[in-house]
């Protein structure tokens, strides 16, 4: 190890008179990346809002006929946050990632779940750009899924082989069609996007507000704590279901409205989790140690408190995300949903035809079921993998 004056290799070689505490804001590359990309997003939004005429497509100038909606902007923000604060740190700390991954991969069901959810996510993102929106096509109604058949009397035009009075399914409609002739495969793919949007965006809102309120309440204590937690109490007694019905009645249903209402009214529990966890953690000696060594409040919250409360957020989220997806499906099933091709709507639409066209309700139902199951398995496995202490404690 060559002793170099500029880079001391032993602690006693540091000349502290040279070290000036730099006044600049200590922004990590990922925070910087988040800031820059959010700014770009904001610029695009302002451009869309002020420059592009109202009914024109956002990217008309470069010849791409795509109208970016408010929902899309918000979803982009969510994805950016997930990218910079989940994916990037994993690449930044390869050792840690390897360590977590080794632990995670021992859990078979969780690996399957992760695969399924990643597939759902990517198909949901890309599929709608490739596939056309499911459209009514009455002549193609009640086509059975491939390898199955339906009495010929149920369909108008059978796309496949007809034998013994039965219409057989073909690869043209691998999952069959609905009573309106909509391709169920298309519906499933579009539904994937809807589910992912609902789950991730609501969870994003909940995570941000919940951890902010929770940590601030725990670290400030006193009146601030009292005020925030009493507000949470009040909010939790408030039925967001009714608010959603009311607003839907007033303004018409939209996915953004659903996400906003459920995101902004469901963070109470998360805040409470985070607060109780943070309260417990502030008593830990490593927090005192960081304080005794001169760490600022912000540094302690960011580098010690938040990472150590993250595991409680993850369990909370692994329950919240599927519940949001399920809520959305339930609303759609009841007919209150937004006018988007979601799984819940299709389940509701196929309800009357269950006697002969079982696939209309069943296929989206299976996807809904598997998605929710996968989130639960994933959350469980993540908690185990991210909490090395819990594991060593249970082993010893």
């Amino acid at each position, binding site marked *: 190890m060559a002793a170099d004056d500029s880079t001391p290799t032993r*602690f006693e070689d540091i000349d*502290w008179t040279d070290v000036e505490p730099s006044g600049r804001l200590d922004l990590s590359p990922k925070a910087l990346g988040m800031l820059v990309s959010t700014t770009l997003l904001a610029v695009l939004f302002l451009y869309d809002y002020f420059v592009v005429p109202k009914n024109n497509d956002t990217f008309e100038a470069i010849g791409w006929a795509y109208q970016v909606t408010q929902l899309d902007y918000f979803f982009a923000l969510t994805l950016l946050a997930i990218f910079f604060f989940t994916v990037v740190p994993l690449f930044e700390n390869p050792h840690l990632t390897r360590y977590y991954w080794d632990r995670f991969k021992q859990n078979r069901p969780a690996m399957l779940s992760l695969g399924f959810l990643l597939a759902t996510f990517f198909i949901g993102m890309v599929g709608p750009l490739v596939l056309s929106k499911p459209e009514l096509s009455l002549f193609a109604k009640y086509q059975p899924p491939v390898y199955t058949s339906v009495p010929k009397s149920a369909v108008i035009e059978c796309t496949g082989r007809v034998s013994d009075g039965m219409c057989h399914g073909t690869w043209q409609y691998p999952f069959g069609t609905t009573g309106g002739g909509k391709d169920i495969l298309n519906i499933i793919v579009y539904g994937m996007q809807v589910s992912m949007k609902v789950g991730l965006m609501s969870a994003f809102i909940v995570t941000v507000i919940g951890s902010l309120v929770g940590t601030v309440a725990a670290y400030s204590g006193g009146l601030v704590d009292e005020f925030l937690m009493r507000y949470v109490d009040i909010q939790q007694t408030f039925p967001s279901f009714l608010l959603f019905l009311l607003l839907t009645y007033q303004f018409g249903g939209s996915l953004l409205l659903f996400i906003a209402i459920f995101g902004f009214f469901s963070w109470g529990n998360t805040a409470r989790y985070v607060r109780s966890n943070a309260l417990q953690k502030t008593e830990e*000696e490593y927090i*005192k140690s960081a304080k*005794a*060594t001169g760490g600022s409040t912000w540094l302690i919250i960011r580098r010690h408190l938040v990472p150590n409360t993250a595991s409680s957020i993850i369990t909370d989220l692994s329950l919240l995300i599927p519940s949001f997806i399920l809520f959305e499906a339930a609303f759609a099933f009841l007919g209150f949903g937004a006018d988007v091709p979601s799984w819940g709507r299709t389940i509701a639409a196929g309800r009357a035809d269950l006697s002969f066209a079982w696939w209309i309700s069943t296929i989206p139902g299976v996807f809904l079921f598997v998605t929710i199951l996968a989130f639960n398995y994933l959350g469980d496995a993540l908690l185990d993998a991210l909490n090395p*202490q819990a594991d060593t404690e249970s082993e010893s």
Partner: protein
Amino acid sequence: MTDEPLLEVRDLKKHYPITQGILKKQVGSVKAVDGISFDIPRGETLGLVGESGCGKSTAATSIIQLEEPTAGEVLFNGDARNAAETAADARHRNDVTEFDPEELKQFRRQAQMIFQDPSSSLDPRMRVGESIAEPLRIHGIEDKAARQEIARNLLDRVGLSRDDYHRFPHEFSGGQKQRISLARALVTNPELIVADEPVSALDVSVQAEILTLMKDIQEEFGLSILLISHDMAVVREICDRVAVMYLGEIVEIGETEELFRNPQHPYTQALLSSIPVPDPTVDRAGTTLSGDVPSPSNPPSGCRFHTRCPDVIQPEGYDFEQEHWRAVMDLRTRLAQRDIDIEAVREFVATESDRDVEPGAVPDDAAKAAIRNEFGIPGSLQDGRAESVLAEALELIVNEDLAGADELLSTEFETVCERDAPSLSETAPGHQSACHLDSTTATTDSVESAVSDD
């Protein structure tokens, strides 16, 4: 002036308010630390010992400014604050309790703390290398590679491996974690380390290793260490000087050898006699303390140790066996707390006796005897005057007049120990003790003046 002590603590106090009700009205205070003073010269280790709850940890956190002291000064004469700045007119400039945020941050670099519980003193989600390097980052070393190299080098020097940098705290044993904590405390090259029970959570064999390591490090870097411990053996191992704390006050302070060889304060003597001697043939007249540690929210008057002191001074004009006098004092302490239930005494006597007696029918004499027995007071004190006072008090007790008995005994048997708080006085060069027994001449003077004042 390099011969001035690195740390001077002057009359440091930390009181915690006791509040009641919604409006948080203050109804009292817990005097965890109540006016302690000591110096730590450069390169020296001072041990602060005492029972749990005596305020030694609070003293540590108040000195290091994790908690704001209620009163007092903590003068830190670190390198960066040299003699010119510490001229007599500007002494307050070195008072840590008056530091502005910038000075405080500098102080936090020069004074580090090690905590008791190795399993919670390192962030479980941070690699140990990062934990060690964190203070560097906080204090403005922005070169990541340099930080990493320094941390690896330190890991090596505290007896671990350079490659442990990427491991997590739970992968280490308690002793190893404490080595890591030590590395973390060292990394900013401090002049003072405050170690709060650094080895009490470890096995005895590991304790010795860590203590040796601390000693080596101290010698190598000329550190000053304030070691907090309840264990006299640990303190003897590495401390140059020892301060003994009881209920928020320092009762004795001196060179380790001198203090262990010739303890002055009865409390120190009791603590020392609690160290096991690995020789079964040694016959030791162990000093045992009576009663519990009083609450720091309402400490005893005068000398705070008088409620438990085996050598408590006898009242003027009476002549007790010391053992009996201690027993009478125990009775007085319980009376002051109104903690004698005469009904229970009668019931006890009734169940103990062979004959069937109703608790109410227990004769007063039997109840009195039971009380004497309970406190170890003989059937009759050798001093007749004392005996008559005691008999009168017992009569009041069995008639359920505890306040009257307390009053009577307090006036008749008042001792200097409960009236005057002894101050630290020198018994030998560099050895101070706060006990009325130490400087008999001085105390009798003050006692007489106090008496004549009344």
